[in-house]
């Protein structure tokens, strides 16, 4: 890796790390003030435990030539040096950030009622049992080999975490009072701080996934810029027409939905495609976040509506917009670029595989924890606030 690319991968990795507190604040601001520290902790905890798991064994299991799962060759980063100028170490760190933020996404769904001890066990297990296999299938495994595309983790990260969030809340149950009681965000400025950090960091997430400072990185960057803008715009326009007001939370949510949707596509689409992807994601997710009220699952901060649905939208639109010519790339073209329906089929299959695996294993994991140490705090703790009961702290004095 030349020094320019190394600089780009390193700063991109730092940007992805920064997204973890960004996500924590995005979620924390939306939360109620007596639970906000628990939310911050659930996110921070992912940044504490997953890096260790990743270098000890996770990366090794996610590598290798096998189609399904790696081996222990690189456990404890064995034999990984810097003779190559640092590219490999930088890449492992970069991927470690991805591994850390993925379970953090789930925290928004289980907010305000999950035992922290259960979360503390859930995260490393989920990383190894769900994240690592799906990652492996998509990047260097059977799904990727078949030709499905996922530039920066639409399937491997957003769809994966989003469907896991659904499985988790189905086992965990609803918050007391939901949906009867109003649970508005306790601090919208925190949400916007989080949104700003997320958008900023997502440039590293997506454009860094080129693993080089090159044309693909530049285009991924531009796509990240445009899709977020378009989705934010679409979301507030829908709100304006439908509910009568464009909202700040809508703008923020739209931005995130656009970022999610463009994630799998960032290095494969060009021109006005990111704007279309963003517009679609903004409209679809703006409606998708209301499904939970219809179906009655308490996905507290809309991980399903934004990450699962947004990720799926992005992943499937690749089937239409993928443009190998623009990138002089070796991947399949989408329908709009005369690639036929094949790619769309592969995208559907890849997501289906991820959804099934993630949903089932996450559900089993949560059920296992429920049967053993328990996953839910007492009603009294829920009423008093998890900050005090789980962490012996209060957010504001």
């Amino acid at each position, binding site marked *: 890796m030349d020094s320019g690319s190394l600089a780009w991968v390193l700063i991109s990795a730092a940007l992805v790390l920064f997204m973890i507190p960004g996500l924590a604040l995005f979620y924390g601001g939306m939360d109620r003030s*007596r639970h906000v520290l628990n939310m911050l902790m659930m996110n921070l905890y992912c940044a504490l435990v997953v890096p260790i798991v990743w270098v000890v064994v996770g990366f090794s299991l996610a590598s290798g030539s096998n189609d399904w799962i790696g081996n222990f060759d690189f456990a404890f980063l064995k034999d990984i040096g810097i003779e190559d100028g640092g590219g490999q170490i930088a890449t492992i760190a970069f991927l470690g950030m991805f591994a850390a933020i993925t379970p953090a996404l789930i925290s928004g769904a289980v907010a305000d009622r999950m035992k922290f001890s259960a979360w503390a066990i859930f995260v490393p297990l989920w990383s190894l049992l769900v994240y690592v296999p799906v990652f492996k299938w998509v990047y260097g495994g059977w799904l990727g080999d078949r030709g499905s595309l996922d530039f920066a983790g639409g399937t491997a990260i957003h769809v994966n975490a989003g469907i896991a969030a659904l499985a988790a809340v189905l086992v965990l149950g609803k918050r007391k*009072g939901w949906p009867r*009681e109003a649970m508005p965000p306790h601090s919208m400025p925190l949400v916007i701080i989080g949104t700003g950090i997320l958008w900023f960091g997502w440039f590293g997430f997506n454009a860094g996934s080129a693993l080089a400072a090159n044309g693909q990185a530049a285009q991924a960057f531009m796509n990240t810029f445009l899709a977020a803008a378009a989705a934010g715009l679409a979301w507030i326009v829908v709100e304006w027409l439908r509910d009568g007001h464009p909202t700040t939370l809508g703008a923020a949510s739209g931005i995130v939905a656009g970022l999610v949707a463009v994630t799998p596509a960032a290095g494969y689409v060009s021109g006005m495609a990111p704007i279309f992807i963003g517009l679609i994601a903004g409209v679809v997710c703006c409606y998708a976040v209301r499904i939970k009220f219809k179906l009655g699952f308490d996905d507290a901060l809309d991980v399903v509506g934004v990450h699962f649905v947004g990720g799926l939208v992005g992943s499937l639109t690749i089937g239409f917009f993928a443009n190998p010519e623009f990138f002089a790339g070796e991947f399949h073209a989408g329908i709009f670029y005369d690639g036929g329906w094949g790619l769309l089929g592969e995208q559907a299959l890849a997501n289906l595989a991820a959804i099934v695996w993630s949903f089932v294993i996450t559900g089993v994991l949560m059920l296992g924890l429920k049967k053993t140490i328990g996953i839910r705090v007492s009603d*009294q703790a829920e*009423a*008093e606030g998890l900050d*005090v009961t789980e962490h*012996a*702290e*209060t957010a504001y004095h």
Partner: protein
Amino acid sequence: MKLITAVIKPFKLDDAKEAVVAAGAKGITVSEVRGFGRQGGHTETYRGAEYRIDFIPKVKLELLVDDEAVDTVVSALASAVSTGKIGDGKIWVTSVDQVVRIRTGERGPDAL
């Protein structure tokens, strides 16, 4: 006219509002307060230093009502917010000499 003051658990505010409105109350003024009582507080820990927090979040309601409405409102309120657990709070009633509705200048019971 009487002033009913109630200190209740915060998450009971909506129930309280519905109950008193059903019982005929026309308005409520609410404040965030912290209460110390039998319920006891909790301990917080910051960098290993334990702090005893004796005051826990409560919500205070103030309602001006007609003399004859007092009992109905108090009973409705009490039963709406009671959980039977320690810390449910208090209701107290005091006499009011005069009430003025600022907008109209009305005084007395009409001002409620």
